[in-house]
């Protein structure tokens, strides 16, 4: 089973990386790009686990390891 976890800064937290990318795109002439936010993506392979357990474990590892809940939020989806 493959799960994708997306981690990004909470909306109220400054995202200097995204801002820098946005500025670069503007300099290159892509003026229609009004905002960029940068985050992390984890593709996690899991073997031998029930769907119910996955439902439980993914938020758990996201909170503990993949994301820092103080400044980051996460979403996840099962890929296959």
């Amino acid at each position: 089973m493959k799960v994708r976890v997306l981690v990004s800064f909470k909306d109220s937290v400054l995202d200097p990386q995204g801002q820098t990318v946005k500025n670069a795109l503007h300099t290159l002439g892509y003026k229609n790009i009004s905002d960029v936010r940068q985050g992390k993506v984890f593709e996690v392979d899991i073997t031998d686990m029930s769907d119910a357990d996955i439902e439980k474990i993914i938020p758990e590892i996201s909170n503990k390891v993949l994301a820092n809940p103080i400044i980051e939020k996460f979403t996840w989806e099962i890929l296959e």
Partner: protein
Amino acid sequence: MIEKKIIKEHGLTEQEYEKIVELIGREPNLTELGIFSLMWSEHCSYKSSKIHLKKLPTSGENVIQGPGENAGIMDIGDGLAIVFKIESHNHPSFIEPYQGAATGVGGILRDIFTMGARPIALMDSLRFGPLSQAHNKSIMEGVVSGIAGYGNSIGIPTVGGEIYFNKCYSPNPLVNVFCIGLARKEKIFYAKAEGAGNSVLYVGSKTGRDGIHGATMASAEFDEDLEKKRPNVQVGDPFKEKLLLEACLEVMDKDLIVGIQDMGAAGLTCSTSEMASNSGSGIAINLDLVPQREEGMTPYEIMLSESQERMLIVAKRDKVQAVQEIFEKWDLEAIHIGQVTDGDKLKVEANGQEVVNIPVDSIVNLCPVYDRPFERPAYLDKLDQLDSLPLPENLNQTLLDLLTDPTQADKEWVFRQYDHMVQTNTALLPGADASVIRIKGTKKALATTLDGNPLYSYLDPKSGGKIAVAEACRNLSCVGAYPIGVTNCLNFGNPEKPEIMWQFKEIVEGISEACLAFDIPITGGNVSFYNETDGKPIHPTPVLGIVGIIPDLDKSIGPGFIDNGEAIFLLGNNRDEIGGTAYLKSQFQMEKGRPPQIDLEEEKRVQNLCLEAIDDGLLSSAHDISEGGLALCLFECAFLSAKKIGCVVHLSDNIRSDSLLFGETQSRILVTAPSHHLSRILNLAKERGVFAKKIGETGGAKIEIGHQNKTLIDLDVQTAFQAWKQAIPESFKIR
């Protein structure tokens, strides 16, 4: 009408609230209350520490600026001034180690360049809980990479620092960061808002809802409610800071501004009101003009936000455009948000309405000052006696244990994550007693060091304070630097507890006494209270940052053995003092006993002798004896020698062998010299009233320490070196 509950949530007492009402002649509105709560917090107002800090000596002929500004300033000749300060970022680092430490670096850098100085070096003093616990490891990993991430990126070398491990810092770490900058004397700037009608410019990052209540948080003890209180921790943007640094230094260099102040803790509130108050003027700003990162921010939020990488500038009326052009060059905006006014008020407008109108003095200067009760803690009565301890059977093993205790072990794992060489001035790499930074274009160099032994301070606060100063100076003496100025960071528990207040008072008195003895002024510092977790305070932890001058860099020496066949001298006396040592802690898990006592006059004689001998070119190396005692000192001299040279040493003192090897008696320096300097050194020592003795010779691949007719230590340098070097990396390998 403001409810009592809200007053309490703002960390203000009812008496304090009444005083506010009296000062402004009416009830404050919520935004005004927020402003008072920030500016009257412990962190910003120093209300519990002020009366004690007054005892510190702060004047001296080279002092250009003592405490009271963003940083201290001292004249170092050649038309140059140094600007330096230390700050704590303990609470933010506890909550979010990487960003907390990173923004700590950002903050101290702004304190330095806001005065017109280009930062030339950073140092960090860190305290963590034992690495045997996973969460302490991850805090340390985060803190170190946060400091690296910020400092490296801006290009300020982190040239040194210190780290202690003790369970009292688990999980509340201490992160103190020191910065020193160099300015031309005629280009120093202050936080001034002079000249009614002059423009107030906002520069740097946009304002977001970051760390609202950050300053009040730094003044509240942590408890199990932490989860709920968890604020929005700031994320640092070092690239923005680099732009800000360059742009600010450029407008200052071109003489376009009246005054400048960083927005650190208490952001816009603190910078506007302090600048006005410093100049006896008023200030008026319009929040609609403040660049905002988020929509719908209230005046309360904008005034209290602690977004990083922002500065406030007061520009000469006719120079605003010139200032804006320079900021534009650096891809930043300088936005006019208000002006300096006659009178004495901070006036804030938003959406066409006045939302704040209070006298600047009331927020900046009229916070109540407390003489909090103090009382000698009861724990001290139990610590004084040491029951007779068994002598370790295998002293080689005892030594290896001491060497591999993370507090004594090699810190390369940490400092190689820091760019310590950028700016090409680092003449002595991290790992030595002090850091040496040359001043290009002169023969001179600066030496800097951070010091503070929390164990001594816990067991005997006054001695702890004195020794912190003495040891820092001793570190400077070992590289041939004359101490000139001091900054300090005082990390303590809850000052509302009489025992904590007592520790504080004692330590400040100790620091004061030592600074007077060395005739060095304190030019600034920082106090961090409420370092407690679930009611358990940290050991009182003063961290002293002392700066010295090396008149001729070519004469400076380091701690490592230079050559085989050189004579090893001990300057100073061995005494039987085993209390409070790293040895007791490592061998017997004891934090007990009376820590070493110090005679400041004796200390000065030893240091002066060392300085004189270095100046006369007599010495090859010098290293001070501190944690781990004489034995550890010898091993460090071998480890820090390029060729890993060993030595043979013989001691004859009538002192119990463990105490002789590992005792931490003060006022001792181990030096080496070519043998033909022997009589000159001994004569000089005699003339200067210092006990000095040749105790051995360098050479070989082993370290052998004999005592009377026994061999106490006989260890291969490489074996010990590898153990010392690997200790910290190993503890990070185990997950």
